Each structure stands twice: as structure tokens, then as C-alpha cells.
């Protein structure tokens, strides 16, 4: 696509001035911004930024939830040839220091008082940060800090400039070239400092367009923007593709109302990482448990039919007339109302990505008629590398290479990618760039996998995480920790799992219980508890988790290759793994190394055969204060099963 983000926006404003571009729910009513209104807003913001001294190639951080005026701000920055850097709005203030200093950021546009407070806290460490604008003035009236002003004030100064100097904005937009840098994304990074991934207008828009063609997206799509804007997935789905297709992006009222807003909007194009789908399913299952026995029986009977028939129907495979009829009846009674209550009744294309999705979870959504598919990509590839075509969605693959992408496998099994959407570089980090982007143009993904007979890419694990069992009865067996953890996590009672086993004689695991699901389960059994730590250590809960682990083991035993990865011992952690404590990334992937270091005593206890272990852990609260949690954790054994011999 030989264009830029601001030019696309102006094109829409010209072609369809009165069509809706953005909607935001405020004061209980969905408020619409049309493309024409958006163009005016962007023009004023851009002129205001120019007044404030923003020059070409300057970096601007944008921090906040999905808000129309923050989207407009990103467009305004790009209009002047500047580079917006969205940062995670839930990050602690200290996490902002590195990106701000690394990218020499002088300007910040943020959502509200919370973000302003965080930036003011670190101002001394970031002397370059001169100007901060806030969208929501609430609570900020009394702030008297140099360089702090409202977005309203910015718009006002921009409106005056736009009137004085009418040709300025259009001239600036015309100067930008597709090969110019459009945005920068800091990757959460499981180790070391985050890296700024630099993308051009061309790389982002080319991929947005590839996805548009692949799924035949039109300007009629409705999208709900609810993931952090700092995540490239969010940026592609509700910014790059928004401008490429011209569809409507809806911003929820607040983080707490997302499920309500989802129902009201009824998106047609939906994107969520597996944990969101998992959360939705868990809430459905919990509510079903509370339903009357009749409803519960009807639900389970219908779901049995759906599991058997639904995916085949969606894949276009032949289905007997009787089964078709049964599914249609189920659709009337259960699936239709269920889709509606999930807010997914209008979904035409839904994607999940970010991490592997449990096969049962994936099948559940497809069986009730939601066209859920998987894709493969990363920040460095501007998301779209592989996509599943409509009739070829499988739980264990991530689809076929999309238009423009070439894939090859390194000898180590690592997947290499060549695509127009590859990053330009890591900002000011040529060493890291050279590591992933070799001179021959291949990008090294760090994922291990292979292409199957149908041309679909299959991911096993992170290349560096796939290990071997050493010693014991399963000596030499392959150990794919992610695979085991995902299997465990599919049980509604288990929120997170961390498996250990590389270079050890057997596999052991940490379990995080799901507070909602286990809490509900405990309530039903009149099991009193004082809080998370107390509940996690109840013997009854251990029994419950043991059943899950053993079921998972039985499942693993089915596969000769992975039978050695069965979990022999486990413990239930006393606190939830949390990004604030450095145990997970902001996108909620477990940081195995950090966890191993932090909980070494627990790992030693698992492998040392102890029955319990005392531990004290420091925790950080959301407001930045810290405290500690201590507990004596029990350690339990789980039954393992002999590996099934493959019928030769």
C-alpha cells in the first residue's frame, strides 16, 4: 500500500464524511465521531503539536485506554512526521523511564490523572520530557506543573494555528512517505530492557491490507477496541486495519464494562488472546453450574451434539441430515442465546493469537457456530504471518502463510519469516536487530515448529524452551513446557501453571488456582476460606487440582512423544503470578526464568521430595507500595500413566 495513515484518514473523510469512524460510550450513550469530524480534530491536534514545537521524527508517547482523542492524537503526530509510541497504560511508572529516555521522548499525550501522576513521579529521571497533555481533566485542576496542559488546550491552540495557516497541515501530510517510520512498539521482553520495534507506514499498512484481503473485510465491520493500545495486535486491528478498511471502532466506557459493551456493539470482527476466550468460557461454566438441573442437563446434551457436529458444519464438511437437525435445534435452544450472551452473535471473523489455545477451548467456540480462527505473528512481523482460512481452522495449527510471506525452517527447527511487514529495526540497538534480522532478509522468530502436509504452520514451543528430560525412567524424552502448561490451564480451576523438567529427571509444576472458579466451587461445598492464600492451601482444593493434573497426565500419555512430560509432583502457589511482581509479561506470559529464581526454594522442595515448604514473597500493589505474603505450601504427588504405544 503506497500511502500513509494520515492520508488514508483524509481519504475516508473525503469519500464518506458522514460515516461513523469511532464510537465511544460516555454518560451511558454511544457517541459517534464521523470521519469528517475526526479529520478536523486531527488537523487541530496536529497544528497544536506543531505550535508546541513537535518536529519531524520526534517521538511522542501515548498512554491510556482506547479513547477516540488518543487515536486522533496518534494520527496527529503521524501527520507531522512524528512517531507515536503507545505504552502500556497499566505499567508502573518506573517502566516508563527506559522507553522515554531510550527514544528521547519530549512529548506525552495521556488519558487521565493516573497517567499524569505516573509521569510526574519519574520526571526527574526523564529530563527530556517537557510537555504532557491529558485527555480527561478530572482531578487535575489544581495541578500546577510546568508543561502540563489539557488536550482541550492543545486543540484550542491548534484551531487558532489552523485558521492562521490553512495550508500547513495538508503540506505536512503530503511530505510523509510510506517508507517513513510510522510507529514504535516496545516489546515487553522476557529478559533485559524492552526493545523499541520500529515500523514504517508501509510495513503496518501492507500487513493490514493483507489481512483485509484474506478475510474480505469491508467498511461495514464493527470492532470493539478493548485491549491495551500498546500491544501491536490492538494497533493492527483497531488502528491500521481501521484506516485500511474504514470500519467502525468502538471504545468501551471503562475496563469494567467491556462485557456489557461487547453485547451492545455486537462486533463482526473480533480479536482476543486465548485468555479472554478462556475467561468468557469460565464465566459461562460457572453460571451453568448455578442453573437449575433441567437447564444444566439441556445445556450438556446440546453441547455434546455441538462438539460432535458444530466444527464440521463450520468447516463445510459433510454432516448427516439428522445431525444437522439436532444442531439446528440446539442452536435455537442453547447456542444462539449463548452467542448472544457472550456478545458474539454477529461475529463473522474472530481471531485468537498471542499464545497457544487449548484444543477444547478452541473447539468450544467453533462448535457453537463462532468462526474462531488462529493466526500467527509478532510485534516484529506486524502481526500477520499466518492466518487460518475460513474452512481450515484447526486447534493445533496457526494457518497458512498469508500473501507476501515466505516461511522456511532453520536446521534447529526455528521458524524463519520473510515478509513486507518485518520491522525496520530495533531502535538504537543494531546488535539485537542483527540477531533476529539477518542480512539475507530472514527474520528469526525464536519459535520452533514445522509446516504440516496441508501447508499449515504448527508451533511447538519457543525454540529455546523445548528441553529434554535427563535421567529417570523417561531419560531423553522431549519436554515442551508450554504444551504441558496449556493443557493444565484448560481446566477452569487452573489459572496459570509453570512446568519444570528441562535437564531434570521428571516434570513438576506450580499451579495458580482461578479464584472465581475455585471460590465458587468452595462456596458450593460450604468450604470457608479467608482469602486467596488460605483457599489455595485447603486440602480439598489440592484434591481438586490433583484430579485435574491426573487427567492432564492421562491425556499426555496418549502421545508417545510427550508421555515423558507427565507431571509427577505439584504445588499450589500462595499468590497469583503478576506482571507487577515481574513474574509475567504485560501480555500475561509467564517469565519462566524469573519465576525459577524467585521460587528456587519451592522448586528444590518439589524435586527434593519434601511434603511442605515455607516461603515469604514480596508483592507490589498497584499503587506502587509493596508488602509480603508468606505461607507454608503443601506439595502433592500426582499419578502418572504408562505411555500408550502407538498402534504400529
Amino acid at each position, binding site marked *: 500500500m503506497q500511502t500513509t495513515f494520515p492520508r488514508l484518514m483524509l481519504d475516508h473523510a473525503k469519500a464518506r464524511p458522514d460515516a461513523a469512524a469511532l464510537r465511544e460510550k*460516555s*454518560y*451511558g*450513550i454511544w457517541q459517534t465521531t464521523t470521519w469528517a469530524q475526526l479529520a478536523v480534530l486531527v488537523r487541530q491536534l496536529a497544528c497544536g503539536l506543531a505550535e508546541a514545537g513537535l518536529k519531524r521524527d520526534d517521538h511522542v508517547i501515548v498512554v491510556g485506554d482506547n479513547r477516540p482523542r488518543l487515536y486522533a492524537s496518534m494520527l496527529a503526530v503521524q501527520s507531522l512526521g512524528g512517531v507515536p509510541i503507545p505504552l502500556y497504560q497499566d505499567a508502573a511508572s518506573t517502566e516508563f523511564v527506559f522507553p522515554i529516555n531510550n527514544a528521547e521522548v519530549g512529548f506525552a499525550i495521556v488519558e487521565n490523572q493516573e497517567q499524569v501522576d505516573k509521569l510526574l513521579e519519574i520526571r526527574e529521571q526523564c529530563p527530556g520530557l517537557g510537555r504532557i497533555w491529558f485527555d480527561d481533566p*478530572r*482531578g487535575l*485542576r*489544581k495541578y500546577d506543573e510546568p508543561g502540563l496542559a489539557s488536550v482541550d488546550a492543545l486543540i484550542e491552540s491548534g484551531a487558532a494555528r489552523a485558521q492562521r495557516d490553512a495550508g500547513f497541515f495538508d503540506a505536512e501530510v503530503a511530505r510523509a512517505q510510506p517508507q517513513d517510520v510510522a510507529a514504535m512498539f516496545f516489546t515487553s521482553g522476557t529478559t533485559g530492557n524492552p526493545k523499541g520495534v520500529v515500523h514504517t507506514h508501509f510495513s503496518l499498512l501492507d500487513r493490514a491490507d493483507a489481512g483485509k484481503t484474506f478475510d474480505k473485510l469491508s467498511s461495514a465491520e464493527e470492532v470493539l477496541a478493548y485491549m491495551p493500545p500498546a500491544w501491536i495486535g490492538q494497533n493492527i486491528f483497531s488502528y491500521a486495519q481501521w484506516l485500511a478498511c474504514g470500519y467502525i471502532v468502538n471504545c468501551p*466506557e*471503562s475496563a*469494567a*464494562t467491556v462485557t*456489557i459493551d461487547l453485547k451492545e456493539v455486537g462486533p463482526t470482527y473480533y480479536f482476543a488472546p486465548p485468555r479472554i476466550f478462556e475467561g468468557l468460557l469460565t464465566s459461562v461454566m460457572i453460571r451453568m453450574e448455578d442453573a437449575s438441573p433441567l437447564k444444566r442437563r439441556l445445556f450438556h446434551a446440546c453441547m455434546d451434539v455441538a462438539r460432535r457436529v458444530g466444527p464440521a458444519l463450520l468447516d463445510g464438511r459433510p454432516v448427516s441430515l439428522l445431525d444437522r437437525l439436532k444442531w439446528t435445534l440446539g442452536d435455537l435452544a442453547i447456542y444462539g442465546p449463548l452467542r448472544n450472551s457472550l456478545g458474539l452473535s454477529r461475529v463473522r471473523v474472530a481471531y485468537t493469537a498471542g499464545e497457544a489455545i487449548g484444543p477444547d477451548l478452541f473447539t468450544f467456540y467453533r462448535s457453537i457456530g463462532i468462526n474462531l480462527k488462529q493466526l500467527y505473528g509478532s510485534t516484529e512481523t506486524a502481526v500477520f504471518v499466518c492466518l487460518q482460512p475460513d474452512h481450515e481452522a484447526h486447534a493445533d495449527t496457526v494457518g497458512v502463510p498469508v500473501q507476501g510471506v515466505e516461511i522456511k525452517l532453520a536446521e534447529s527447527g526455528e521458524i524463519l519469516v520473510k515478509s513486507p511487514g518485518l520491522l525496520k529495526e530495533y531502535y538504537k540497538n543494531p546488535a539485537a536487530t542483527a540477531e533476529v534480522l539477518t542480512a539475507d532478509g530472514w527474520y528469526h522468530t525464536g519459535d520452533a515448529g514445522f509446516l504440516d502436509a496441508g501447508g499449515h504452520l504448527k508451533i511447538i514451543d519457543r525454540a529455546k524452551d523445548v528441553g529434554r528430560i535427563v535421567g529417570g525412567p523417561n531419560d531423553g524424552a522431549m519436554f515442551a513446557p508450554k504444551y504441558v502448561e496449556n493443557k493444565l490451564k484448560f481446566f477452569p480451576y487452573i489459572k496459570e501453571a509453570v512446568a519444570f523438567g528441562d535437564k531434570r529427571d521428571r516434570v513438576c509444576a506450580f499451579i495458580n488456582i482461578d479464584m472465581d472458579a475455585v471460590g465458587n466451587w468452595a462456596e458450593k461445598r460450604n468450604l470457608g476460606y479467608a482469602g486467596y492464600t488460605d483457599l489455595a492451601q485447603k486440602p480439598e482444593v489440592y484434591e481438586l487440582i490433583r484430579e485435574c493434573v491426573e487427567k492432564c497426565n492421562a491425556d499426555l500419555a496418549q502421545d508417545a512423544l510427550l508421555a515423558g512430560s507427565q507431571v509427577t509432583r505439584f504445588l499450589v502457589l500462595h499468590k497469583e503470578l503478576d506482571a507487577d511482581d515481574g513474574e509475567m509479561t504485560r501480555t500475561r506470559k509467564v517469565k519462566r526464568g524469573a519465576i525459577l529464581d524467585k521460587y528456587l526454594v519451592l522448586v528444590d522442595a518439589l524435586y527434593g521430595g519434601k511434603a511442605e515448604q515455607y516461603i515469604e514473597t514480596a508483592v507490589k500493589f498497584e*499503587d506502587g507500595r509493596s508488602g509480603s505474603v508468606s505461607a507454608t505450601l503443601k506439595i502433592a504427588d500426582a499419578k502418572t500413566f504408562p505411555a500408550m504405544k502407538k498402534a504400529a
Partner: protein
Amino acid sequence: MTAEVSDRKSGDVILDVKNISLAFGGVKALTDISFNVREHEIRAIIGPNGAGKSSMLNCINGVYQPQQGTISFRGQTFSHMSRRQVAEMGVARTFQNLALFKGMNVIDNIMTGRNLKMKTNLFQQAIRIGAAQREEEAHREFVEHIIDFLEIQAYRKTPVGRLPYGLQKRVDLGRALAMEPKVLLLDEPMAGMNVEEKQDMCRFVLDVNDEFGATIVLIEHDMGVVMDISDRVVVLDYGKKIGDGTPDEVRQNEDVISAYLGTSH
């Protein structure tokens, strides 16, 4: 926090309580209490259990009629006031033991706070045409601002009885705010809350004072909260005033220390 408090400009006296005495039969609940509240300030009334804090609030509110003394509100002096008169003058309150309609949803509960502002009659409202509809829309918009302000958008349609206690307290505050009060009386707004809920509530009280410009009279048990957010504090003990001043002054006051910590006689 302290800088912010001292910056805040307090205006003229808006509420003046003079020589109030209240007795229930032989039990003296309040004895000769005098203090005043200035416009835009946060004024706290503290004291140990049974000190007469709630009785004091009930006198201001018109629920109890004191046997002696006068209360002036914006220069007008009253010795007896009905609850309705007080509410019409712009005094709203929240309750220590929530007084919400448990079966009604959040919107309807907050709407009840607009009752005094409604001009159309019951019949018009029942058929909901013309003026009644316009009026309802205007009131609903005001209520939506409160919902946004208190960050309870996710619970608009939830019956209040199903909400956790901390949120119910917020709805109670919302209902009082719906009256667009000049003076807001808060009866133990933080009672029974956990640390996080208390922090939220503190922020809301400060914001109400700031954004809505309401004068706040607050009864509170939690000394930490009181000292952090109030401009001036009255201390009661056994129905008598034993201290009055800024949080720092009160903290140094010998009588207050002995009332709270006890002394050896």
C-alpha cells in the same frame, strides 16, 4: 496532601451551630455544642463511640429537634427545622447503615435523589409524555454524570442489594450528590471498608469537594482518614466538645489524646 489542604480556600461561614443541647429523657446526648462550617471546606466530626456524632448530624439534618440552641444556615437562623426544609435548602446526607432501596437498580436509586427537583406531578410521570419525559431525560443525564464520576458504569442496571458493600456506599453517596447539595453530610463513609475501598472513597470525597464545590461535614471513626482529608476537625466526647481546629492542632490537644487513648487517673 497537606499542601493541597492548606491551599484550599474556605469561604464564609455557611453553617453555624450554636449552643446545641439534646437529651433523650434523662440521657444527655449533646451538651452546649457550638461550631461552624465554612463554605467549601471539609469539616470532620470525630469522637469515640457514643460521643454524640450521629446525634449532631441528625440535629443539623432536622431528624432530631434539639431542646436548646440554634442552627443557622447561610445566615438564616432556625430552632426547629423539618427534614424536608433542610433538604430543600441544599443539605444532603449519606447514612452510616445504608438506606438504599435494595431491590431497585443503581440508576433508580440515584434518581430518587432527584425527587425534590422534579416539577411534574405523579400523573404526568406515569404516562410519561411531554414535560415529564423532557424532565426525566434531563434528570437522567445528571444521574449519568454522577455514575461516571463515581465510576459505577458497569452496575447501572444491577439491583443495589447484589452489589458489594463498598459499591453500595458509593451509590449512597451518588444518591446524595443527585440532590446537588450545598452541604453534604457524610455519616461514617468509610465504615466497614477495606484499605483499597477507603482510598477510593477518600478520593471521591476530595473530588466531590473539588468538582461539585460542595461543603462537606463528615463523621468518621478512622483517624488516619480524617487527618488526611479534612480542613478542620471538631472532637466530641460524651456529648461535649473537647477540641476544635486543624488536624494538627487537634492531634496535639491533651483532652483529645486522653479521650482517644485513655489516661490514668
